[in-house]
């Protein structure tokens, strides 16, 4: 019963971690997981989010075993 969290680029640097695992709790959302993993840091403006590698909104609800990712705007190419 857990959620896997991934952080990338400047977000990983600022939080000084790239991965985390949280116990799954019914009703968890992408926003509520951020509050836990960031230890209260405000939700960054412009942050992009994905659940199981598909883009999502902050109010997306999670299921047990999901992988949640947070990252800044993409800058490839």
């Amino acid at each position, binding site marked *: 019963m857990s959620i896997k969290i991934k952080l990338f*680029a*400047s977000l990983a640097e600022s939080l000084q971690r790239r991965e985390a695992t949280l116990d799954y709790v019914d009703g968890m959302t992408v926003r509520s997981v951020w509050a836990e993993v960031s230890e209260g840091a405000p939700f960054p403006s412009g942050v992009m989010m*994905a659940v199981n*590698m598909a883009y999502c909104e902050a109010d997306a609800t999670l299921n047990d075993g999901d992988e949640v990712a947070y*990252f*800044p705007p*993409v*800058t*490839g*190419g």
Partner: protein
Amino acid sequence: MAVEIYDKPFNPWHELQQYQSKHAELLGKYGATAVFVGSMRDFNEDEDVHAMTLEHYPGMTERHLEEICSEANQRWDLIEILVIHRVGDLQPGDPIVLVAVWSAHRAAAFEASRHVMEDLKTRAPFWKKEMLSQGHRWVAKNSPGTTSNNS
């Protein structure tokens, strides 16, 4: 259709030649090949850039690049698409991305290659970190894909 992520330098012209040789059965089917190569500059936002690190989200990046190519395939009448993107440590001049589109006629190849490139810029999870004379910075956003005359 092929999507590749390379963690070592690559030669886009060699890759193109190899890809065309591998698909020799298509010779004569396509009349247009549109190619975009993006490479690393040694300057950005009025600063010298000495090196760059490209980070990506393994799995999600490939998935989104494949989606972008599939969408282009549905929208235009295309014969082949090849996308190669670098990750890891780059030096100025190193190729970052290759987008090549083959079609029977030029309009589809021109339009689809631009579309794939612009979609890649906004949807594919890659991030650039630039090494400057003093310290480093993450690129906050990509430059626009149109010139001021066209915007």
